[in-house]
């Protein structure tokens, strides 16, 4: 056997090599190998291995005593130096720590938010295998909707392989619930197949999911709702009244986590809705949201095609018009902002998750830059220390480690402060974001994130000082000829420019977002929404609408009353393609939103008629035959001179009597759609979604509301009074944008504060360095303003340079953002100029404080300095 093949175990050899002192390592390793070889000859390979491994145990005590103990002593020394340096320059340390702490707090807040956004629906055990069926293809469904016909899911399960289970949902109109003396409206209800409990993880607290929906009117409620009605009683088996009908509570489930896109307070069976209303259950009514549980690893595109094929086979009219079905994974639903008109919770947006992550990164970067900037600027004060350490034998590696250690120490301190800051800021942040976020320090992901942030910050912030400071030559430094070199000055300039590039970009972004929001909220919808209150039409009101109306109009503070089949500002709409008109080309179809209104609707909202007239009592035929369309509908249909032309919806034949000027009935996210209005003769038909619009005297809001409440309670004692203002409803359509805007504002503010902190520190340091120069200048006759100008000039210059980088970046990003609005502002140049000037102004104020102090100083004092 070849001798060279017998080698000691590699791992053990490595460890030994590490723990044996460097200067005797060579001989020791040789001795050990020799010994290993003899052992192998004598006792065999196994014993030799054992022997070799045991040597580690022998060498270890000495290693610990010598190496680790000494490192510890040095560590103590480093800690002491760090501590002394921190306390000696309290101002700089404060700026460093405050900047880092604020930066890290912002980053943490954003991370918590992002984590929450990404956590949606992942708590369901079957999350991976659950998909929602989306329908794509019709013209006005922007990117698809979640509506599917009721018979689709059972048919698909029958015919398409790979489907384990299905559950259908649909929303329920606002209903009155009663138990004992407690009466409330419940808006957050869903009807669903009982299979929901097999597919989704909504655990039962009481009751049995298997028997939950045996009777059509059985309901399951959440703990929250159970508390509201039943308090400490056991709700299971009790009977509530829903709109006057008895409904048995069959189970109580845990409250729905906020990070579920399916949100409800009560759940009732599939038959429930038919008991109350006649809900469209045909292949042509896209009223249900369908979820499928698939077998693992199925090709979802294939299944989507198969679903479309099944619907086509069953003569689904929409599919014949080109609608296709696709599957969307459950985990992606929340962040898919494109889809869905109907949604049970706030829709998230993947875009914002990215944007905020980037902002978090940049804010942290700004804080790191502060750290780097101040450390390099202060390098002169540390230079002697470095020189001294090098002279007594510190290696460069040791110095680098020392400075990294220092930045790690400061980062850890900042981390502690930032955690306190996060705890303080979290309630406000929750209010802005509309979430219930918590700082959960037991959460493994969060802790790992925190550790990564700390390490990343420490390394980034410490890297330049560590490399730069450790490179000093002791001879130069100790002789005192050391000057902060040109290289580090350039580097500092780059850093300041970077900081302000980010700050200015954020400033521009915020301004553009703010302008767009103002534009949305103040842009003319094309009609009047002020001083209009709306209340739901309930059963008793529908039947006695005329009486209610005249009673209301008795009051001089109530100006007019109108009824509508459903509120047109609502996200959902009734739409159809089943229209015919004079001059229609063969096969031409237009998807038109339809609504039923009465005489007062158009005058109350100040809607402008371009042609024709409003519904009128003078024409008896208006009730059954008149149509009013908007300009968009006329354009889509291509009718010339529309007034008087034949128009029909299904079997309801009639004529067009008027054309409305285009107005934004819905949110400005979407383009103006074609609308048709016809007359609502029987208001009692509109009990599901109908509203009564009441225009009141704006100066006497309180009185008018009291009157409305009085009349309401007289007519409808069973349901509680509830109202909303129309303009507030429109405002709420931009809630998401408003939230994003506020968050953006806050973080921009923080970014600027951190940048200015850094600039302040830098300015004060550099001014201090030039104390002599300023003194001499003053003695030679320089004016105070001249000196302030001299000192502020350079900083302002860097900030102005930052604009060059910030403008294109901000323009690019904001232009993308604006594309999500159908109606948007143009980004004007003045936004950039304004942001640039604002940033320069803030920087100037920050710097000039120091400059002024230096300029005001008595030259005698400054020349005696040093």
């Amino acid at each position, binding site marked *: 056997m070849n*001798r*060279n093949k017998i*080698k000691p175990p590699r791992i053990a050899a490595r460890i*030994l090599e590490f723990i*044996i*002192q460097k*200067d*005797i390592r*060579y*001989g*020791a*390793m*040789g*001795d*050990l*190998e*020799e*010994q290993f*070889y*003899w052992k192998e000859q004598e006792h065999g390979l196994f014993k030799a291995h054992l022997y070799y491994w*045991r*040597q*580690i*145990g*022998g*060498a*270890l*005590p*000495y*290693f610990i*005593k*010598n190496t680790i103990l000494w490192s510890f002593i040095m560590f103590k020394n480093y800690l002491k130096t760090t501590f002394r340096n921190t306390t000696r320059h309290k101002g700089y340390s404060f700026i460093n720590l405050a900047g880092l702490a604020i930066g890290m707090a912002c980053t943490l807040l954003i991370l918590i938010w992002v984590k929450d956004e990404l956590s949606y629906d992942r708590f369901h055990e079957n999350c991976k295998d659950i998909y929602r069926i989306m329908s794509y293809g019709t013209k006005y469904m922007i990117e698809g909707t979640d509506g599917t016909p009721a018979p689709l899911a059972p048919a698909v399960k029958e015919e398409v392989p790979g489907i384990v289970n299905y559950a259908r949902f649909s929303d329920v109109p606002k209903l009155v619930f009663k138990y004992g003396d407690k009466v409330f409206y419940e808006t957050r209800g869903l009807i669903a197949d009982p299979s929901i409990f097999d597919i989704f993880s909504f655990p039962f607290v009481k009751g049995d999911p298997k028997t939950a929906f045996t009777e059509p009117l059985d309901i399951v409620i959440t703990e929250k709702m159970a508390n509201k009605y039943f308090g400490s009683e056991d709700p299971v088996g009790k009977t509530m009244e829903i709109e006057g009908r008895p409904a048995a509570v069959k189970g109580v489930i845990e409250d729905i986590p906020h990070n579920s896109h399916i949100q409800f307070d009560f759940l009732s069976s599939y038959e429930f809705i038919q008991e109350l209303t006649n809900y469209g259950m045909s292949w042509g009514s896209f009223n249900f949201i369908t979820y499928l549980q698939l077998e693992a690893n199925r090709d979802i595109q294939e299944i989507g095609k198969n679903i479309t094929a099944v619907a086509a086979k069953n003569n689904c009219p929409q599919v014949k018009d080109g609608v296709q079905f696709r599957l969307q994974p459950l985990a992606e639903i929340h962040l898919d902002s494109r889809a869905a008109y109907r949604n049970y919770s706030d829709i998230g947006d993947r875009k914002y998750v990215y944007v905020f992550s980037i902002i978090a990164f940049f804010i942290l970067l700004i804080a790191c830059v502060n750290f780097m900037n101040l450390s390099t600027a202060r390098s002169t004060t540390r230079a002697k220390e470095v020189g001294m350490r090098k002279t007594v034998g510190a290696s460069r590696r040791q110095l680098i480690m020392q400075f990294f250690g220092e930045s790690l120490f400061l980062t850890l301190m900042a981390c502690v402060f930032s955690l306190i800051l996060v705890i303080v800021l979290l309630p406000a942040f929750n209010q802005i974001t509309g979430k219930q976020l918590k700082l959960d320090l037991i959460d493994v992901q969060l802790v790992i994130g925190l550790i990564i942030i700390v390490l990343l910050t420490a390394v980034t912030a410490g890297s330049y000082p560590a490399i730069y400071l450790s490179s000093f030559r002791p001879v130069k430094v100790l002789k005192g000829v050391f000057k902060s070199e040109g290289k580090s000055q350039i580097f500092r300039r780059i850093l300041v420019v970077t900081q302000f590039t980010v700050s200015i970009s954020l400033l521009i972004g915020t301004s553009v977002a703010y302008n767009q929001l103002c534009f949305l909220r103040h842009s003319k919808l094309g009609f009047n929404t002020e001083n209009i209150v709306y209340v739901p039409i309930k059963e008793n009101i529908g039947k006695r609408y005329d009486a209610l109306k005249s009673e209301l109009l008795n009051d001089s503070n109530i100006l007019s009353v109108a009824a509508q089949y459903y509120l047109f500002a609502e996200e959902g709409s009734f739409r159809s393609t089943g229209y015919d008109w004079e001059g229609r080309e063969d096969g031409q179809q237009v998807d038109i939103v339809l609504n039923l209104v009465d005489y007062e609707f158009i005058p109350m909202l100040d809607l402008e008629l371009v042609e024709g007239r409003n519904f009128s009592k003078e024409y008896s035929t208006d009730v059954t035959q008149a149509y009013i369309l908007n300009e968009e509908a006329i354009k889509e249909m291509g009718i010339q001179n529309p007034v008087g032309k034949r128009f029909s919806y299904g079997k309801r034949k009639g004529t067009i009597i008027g054309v409305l000027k285009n107005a934004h009935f819905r949110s400005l996210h979407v383009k103006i759609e074609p609308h048709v209005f016809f007359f609502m003769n029987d208001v009692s038909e509109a009990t599901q979604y109908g509203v009564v619009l009441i225009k009141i005297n704006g100066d006497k809001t309180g009185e008018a509301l009291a009157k409305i409440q009085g009349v309401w309670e007289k007519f409808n004692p069973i349901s509680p009074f509830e109202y909303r203002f129309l303009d507030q409803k429109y405002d709420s359509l931009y809630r998401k944008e408003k939230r994003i805007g506020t968050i953006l504002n806050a973080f921009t503010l923080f970014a600027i504060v951190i940048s200015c902190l850094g600039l302040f520190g830098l300015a004060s340091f550099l001014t201090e360095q030039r104390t002599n120069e300023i003194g001499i200048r003053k003695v030679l006759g320089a004016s105070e303003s001249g000196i302030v100008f001299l000192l502020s000039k350079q900083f302002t210059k860097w900030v102005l340079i930052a604009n060059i980088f910030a403008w294109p970046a901000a323009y690019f990003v904001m232009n993308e953002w604006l594309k999500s609005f159908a109606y948007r502002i143009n980004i004007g140049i003045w936004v950039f100029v304004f942001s640039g000037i604002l940033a320069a102004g803030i920087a100037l104020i920050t710097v000039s404080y120091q400059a002024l102090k230096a300029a005001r100083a008595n030259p005698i004092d400054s020349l005696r300095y040093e």
Partner: protein
Amino acid sequence: MKLLSRIEEIILLSIWRLGDRAYGIAIREEVIKATGKKWLLGSIYGPLGRLHKNGYVLALKGEPTPERGGRSKVYYRLSREGIKALRDIQRVNSLIWNGIEELEFKEE
């Protein structure tokens, strides 16, 4: 004067005793012989390294041998400081051990 630890003292003496054959394995055997205790080779190197670092011993490279994975043997020799340290120890020892012959355990 810096006092050596006991094991350092024994190693130094072993090196002196071994003369020009003093390398790791031989030193270990010598130490085992003197103390009657099993010493791991690994635990010899700690003190040995310290002695070397502090200049009590000098290291010399010998010929490379195959058993050692192609490395040379490293022989150790006492340096001037090493010899001085041993002398110091001897002096201290003889001082403080003086009169040890009279030591015995008395029961009271």
